[in-house]
């Protein structure tokens, strides 16, 4: 197992480097726009634009820029933001805890709620509880995030005045963003859990467990639910990876200082170093979470062994 983990970590480095290289080249070759022109402002002279390009090192050949980037990258330096002139590593390090907190809360609460709804609707299959659960899950999954976020603000912040509209600082600031993202997450997990549970509940070993006279709770949790966890863990892993890269819309609506809003701002300002930093974070998040998911598989299903 430890050899497997080590091998996966070693594979992660060229993977992240590959992603970063593609982004580095795409930004400079394929994406229209120039950070120097954005920074120079609307009244710039061609000379000023050139001076800023020179100051930022953008007048050097792309290959030379890439070599400089690589040299700094291996030293843990991702450069300075074109727009803010701050070290990218520092800016992302300050933004990441907000995104990580939002991700953790959203996945933990959304998944727990989804599991409960999924199990209950599977157990009460083809009853009004099941029908109601399916309708709610489909509804929650279909609601666009931006619309839900604004509706929650209108109801709980503007209407009832019990939760803040934006910002961070207290636990209250996380309630609406987590609810906005968690609703979709819980609906997804509920649908997945229900279908897996229905399949597992009709298997022979569950019937045998019931025939042995085991309690319903014991049958559901130890025999049925445990065997439905593999696909759920996969989906949760993908959700975590995606959210760690930034829940862009939610962060914008609730004005959270996370990685998502940082990345969007960087893209619109053609802030190359910041975009690269965000991409590296997203790639690393996915690699790390996938590794974690693979390890959890082995714990959940003892038949899975990594050589």
């Amino acid at each position, binding site marked *: 197992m430890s050899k497997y983990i080590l091998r996966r970590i070693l594979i992660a480095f060229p993977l992240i480097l590959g992603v970063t290289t593609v982004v580095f080249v795409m930004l400079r070759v394929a994406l229209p726009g120039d950070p120097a022109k954005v920074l120079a402002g609307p009244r710039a002279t061609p000379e000023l634009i050139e001076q800023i390009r020179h100051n930022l090192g953008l007048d050097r050949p792309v290959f030379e820029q890439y070599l400089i980037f690589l040299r700094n990258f291996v030293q843990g330096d991702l450069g300075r933001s074109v727009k803010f002139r701050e070290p990218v590593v520092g800016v992302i390090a300050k933004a990441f805890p907000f995104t990580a907190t939002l991700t953790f809360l959203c996945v933990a609460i959304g998944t727990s709620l989804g599991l409960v709804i999924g199990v209950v609707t599977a157990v009460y299959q083809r009853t009004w509880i099941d029908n109601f659960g399916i309708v709610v899950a489909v509804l929650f999954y279909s609601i666009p995030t931006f619309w839900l976020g604004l509706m929650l603000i209108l109801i709980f912040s503007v209407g009832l005045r019990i939760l803040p*509209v934006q910002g961070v600082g207290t636990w209250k600031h996380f309630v609406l963003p987590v609810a906005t993202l968690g609703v979709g997450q819980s609906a997804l997990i509920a649908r997945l859990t229900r279908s897996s549970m229905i399949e597992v509940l009709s298997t022979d070993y569950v019937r045998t467990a019931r025939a042995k006279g085991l309690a319903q709770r014991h049958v559901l949790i130890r025999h049925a639910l445990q065997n439905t966890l593999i696909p759920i863990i996969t989906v949760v892993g993908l959700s975590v990876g995606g959210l760690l890269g930034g829940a862009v819309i939610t962060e914008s609506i609730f004005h959270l*200082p996370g990685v998502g809003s940082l990345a969007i701002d960087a893209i619109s300002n053609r802030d190359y170093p910041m975009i690269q930093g965000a991409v590296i974070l997203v790639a690393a998040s996915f690699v790390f979470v996938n590794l974690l998911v693979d390890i959890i598989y082995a714990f959940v299903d003892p038949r899975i062994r990594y050589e």
Partner: protein
Amino acid sequence: MFKSRFAVFALLLVALMALGGAVMAQDMMEGKGGRLVVADANSNTSLDPFVSSWHSWPHYAIYPTLFARAEDMSYIGFLADTWEVSEDSKALTINLIDFATFTDGSPIDAEAIKWNLDRYANPDTGASQGRDLIGLLEEVKINGDYSFTMRLASPYAPLFFVLSGLEIVSPTAYEALGPDDFGTSPVGGGPFIFKELVTDNYVLFERNPDFTWAPEELYDHPGPVFLDELQILFIGEEQTVLAALETGEVSLAGIPTQNLADAQANPDIDVHIAQLSQIRYVGFNTSKDPWTDPDLRRAFAYATNREEFVTLAWEDLAQPLYQPLPPTIWGHNPELDAVAPSFDPDKASELLDSLGYVDVDGDGLREDPDGNAWSVPLATASPDEWRRQAEVLEAQWRDVGIPLEIQLLEFSALIDLTTTGEHDLFLLLYGYQDPSILTYFFDPERKGGSNRAWFSTDELTSLLNAADTQLDPDLRYEAVTAVSEYIIEASPWVYLAVPPALTGVRAELENWRIHPDLSFLYWNAYFETG
């Protein structure tokens, strides 16, 4: 003996006056304070004025300037106490107030100002702000601790305008921190001191207790400011801003046009409506065929119904525009509206017919002079506001048979496109407060930069030069009128509208007002703190 008694008496008197002043100031500030929270996404830039191209709330909170503008739009001293322009208009001597200090304790003296001006004027700095000084400022000569003379290569009419926008930083702090770190720990000598920055989210300032040099023409109380803190939130989401204004989390913000009625109906929000010093226009790339032909460009101007445009795109809150300068910029001459092309679809059709753009296949849309399908690409920004404006133009121009093809781009891609010279039409804006803005857009040296229409002629260059070097206000007004007249005739742009500025302010905020240039005068504003 008498002399020493007199000296003691004088000293006592001065001490009592100082004590009295301090007590009065303390009394004035009693029960006043609070945190002013402003939502402004545009303020989300570096706090280093040598880096940022957009200067807004944060910069004016921490940095003073040499001059400011009074409410009659004349120039008044801020750090400058008295000043004198030489007879040849090529030298400006400024005597500074002698009691202003940066918040690191160093004096705001002639040396400090020289350091700042030299840095702005150095092309290697790459400063967007103050670039007018490059090649213009020949020397800053220090005459004394608080007096200096700026020597210019030529007279420059917008000089006071430029100097009223140049923020003065502490050279001591800048040199100690270096350009890499000054933006995150800025030091100025303005009404507020930098306290905290969460990059891309907000910046927080606290009152500068030593600040007592607010221009008296603008503020009854010269300082310190009454507010305890100022926070600028960089929120881009309009509906979040509005919700935060309604709940009181934000005290001041712009209001989206579509939400004006809601905001006005809210008793907790005071709404201020004005016209921006800004215009929306369509530009042609006059270096590329067929847009080299002024008659073709003029046909588009005749095909544009500005009254309908402001109704459909701005819900009647904007003002129709027929010339390059809006009424909110000095130099606008209302008489020029009469000579500018206004909506006349028959004239537009006549011009297009004469140029060979006729409807050959009878589908209601014109073909090009060779009889091939004609398509007019118009590039603009992707946000809804811009798309709506482009769609109104598309409908209006279709009525005279012009087939428009709208291209929605991100702002940075749009700016990039217009500097390549390969574009066709573009829908954009400019905002400024001095007629010298026209030089930025029609200077031959700025093709590939801010001259996005790629339009210049020798005659126009000489007219612009005359306007920028004429210091007499009446003569300058005539020179600016001549520039506007020439541009109207040549039609490199179709002028569309002057957009509105809708500002919402929480009713709890006391003693504020809005300057005619739309800056928010809040240094004497406060919340009652009981």
